[in-house]
């Protein structure tokens, strides 16, 4: 039972961070219908920002979210304004090529600057735990990152549901042309949406760095995960991405214990296929 609880708990905690990555991707897709293949690389940039803040300025990885979030927002907005906006009306293949290209540029630039060495952040709490009872222990950094993730997700929900800008973003996501006719500046909404997506990915990177390792190609792992999460939850659905992230986290964790570590990705993808088979639009997606 302790093993079950332990793996369920670590699954939920990891899933929280996955959700953050998925929400970023789904937000970008929802508003622009652009599939962002550079999502993992944006996350990687966030990791390196955290690494720099930690090694050069001595800022704790979790505190550095305060810097990473706005910086990555600006970075995302810049990418949108300079690159993505130009291909919004192009065929999907061109959009995909553009984002893949941007991702490659990011990972290779980082590799030139930092080399491909692994960086590991060692903080005072890196391997500390909090005992929950019943032989179950929770990793302190994972717990903190889960709490921050929850706070950010809650703030994002509030922003999207209650503020004018948030509603304008949702309106743009629902129907771009209609939104424009209603006087919404959709270009601006796109910039905000991409900025937010990048900021969320970057924040996820910052939150993972104390428990994971950092290297320029780390993005690929997370781009794939982000896709599974978003498609599973329903493309464009923020609630779906949250749900998808936690679901994937739990599935990975439980299947590593009860089936085999080596097979956990298989289990995740089988689950993914099953969901698509019975609900092609994803868990929270509206059927087209």
């Amino acid at each position: 039972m302790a093993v079950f609880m332990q793996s369920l708990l670590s699954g939920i905690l990891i899933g929280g961070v996955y959700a953050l990555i998925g929400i970023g991707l789904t937000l970008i897709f929802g508003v622009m219908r652009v599939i962002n293949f550079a999502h993992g690389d944006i996350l990687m940039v966030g990791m390196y920002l955290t690494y720099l803040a930690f090694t050069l300025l001595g800022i704790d990885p979790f505190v550095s979210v305060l810097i990473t979030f706005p910086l990555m927002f600006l970075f995302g907005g810049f990418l949108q304004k300079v690159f993505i906006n130009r291909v919004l009306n192009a065929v999907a293949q061109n959009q995909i090529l553009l984002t893949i290209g941007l991702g490659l540029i990011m990972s290779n630039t980082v590799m030139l600057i930092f080399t491909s060495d692994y960086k590991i952040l060692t903080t005072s709490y890196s391997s500390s735990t909090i005992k929950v009872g019943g032989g179950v222990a929770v990793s302190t950094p994972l717990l903190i990152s889960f709490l921050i993730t929850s706070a950010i997700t809650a703030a994002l929900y509030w922003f999207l549901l209650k503020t004018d800008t948030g509603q304008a973003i949702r309106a743009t996501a629902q129907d771009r042309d209609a939104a424009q006719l209603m006087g919404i500046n959709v270009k601006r909404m796109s910039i905000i949406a991409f900025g937010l997506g990048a900021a969320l990915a970057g924040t996820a990177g910052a939150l993972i760095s104390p428990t994971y390792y950092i290297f320029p190609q780390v993005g690929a792992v997370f781009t794939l995960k982000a896709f599974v999460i978003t498609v599973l939850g329903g493309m464009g659905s923020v609630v779906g991405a949250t749900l998808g992230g936690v679901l994937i986290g739990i599935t990975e964790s439980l299947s590593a214990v009860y089936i085999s570590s080596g097979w956990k990705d298989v289990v995740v993808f089988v689950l993914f296929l099953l969901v698509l088979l019975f609900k092609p639009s994803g868990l929270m997606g509206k059927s087209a």
Partner: protein
Amino acid sequence: MRKRFLALGATLVLSPCLLAQKIGVINTMTGPEAPIGENITNGIKLAEEDLLKKGIHVQLVWEDDTGKPQISMSAMEKLATRDNVVGVVGPYTSACSNAVSKLAEKYRVPLLIPAAAKEEITRQGLKNVFRMNAPADKYASSLIDAATSLGKPKSIAFIYENTDFGTSTTKTAKEYVTKKGFQVVADVAYPKGSADYRSTLAQIKSKNPDLVFMVSYVADAILLMRQSREVGLQPQAFLGAGAGFTTAEFAKERAISENVISCTQWTEDVNWPGAKEFGKRYKTRFGKEPSYHAACAYASMIIMAETAKASGGDRTKTRDGLKAGKWNGIMGEVQFADYDGFNNQNNHQMLVQQIISGNYETILPSRFATKKAVYPFPKWK
């Protein structure tokens, strides 16, 4: 492209000494395994300097395989057909070496593998494939023998990455412990680069094994030990087979690396001729501690170049020279012998070491020991 230009530049500079031996190097210079590949690169650079001092000019053709077997294979094709090298030193990882070994045989290019562990590589009866380091079976047997000589462990848990290196090392380890009457309580292969091993480790903890045997590269080694501490996994000993558990980066993480037992092909405090000097030179030159890979690569390059020179750059003669020769240097005595189903395999003496006060100290065999072993593993703080 840049490499091409460098090679071209090197050709122009070296063209006066046309007698230079052209030797290929396949190594993992970028990608996740690059930090270990760097040791190999540096070892070879030092070998190049020493060869020059001995009057042996070598012209090295560097190829980066990024740790991927398919790239490694195309590098080998290029070296064998386009660059016409006398011999090749490399590649680093087991998966790459295994793939490349068949090509070496096909093109009859002598291949000297410095540090890949998978046993099968030198068990295929290939005439052109030589290996410097001790293969995986030695990792396992030397570690388990160390544990049984220090205490009375009865059960063991295996956790290893699901690559050639991990599975092959663990397979022989399992055979060995079954023969010794151990009970295998867990056997877990994990995919490289997972963020979370906690659930797996918690499961292993519930089986309460006396020994935990791990096979991983650098970053995973650190994560595994961190998370072992988190879940409170407390065996009599953590045994780390090679690679990730024998690097300076790992030792630096003192909170989790202290008292971990690992085995290695080489340390600078063994009394093999030139080992100490090599360690010192490496540190002053590159500002880092050398790993055993550096020493293996150094010795491999020296042997390959000397043999190539002696055989006048002929591939077949070089191969025969490698087979017949005997050397003594920083890796101790080297001879490529046939034994226990191996071909052209150097029967290398493994060293068992433990991290004590942040340093790797040799604990076995006793004639090389620098410190007394700490056993059992102290309670996590």
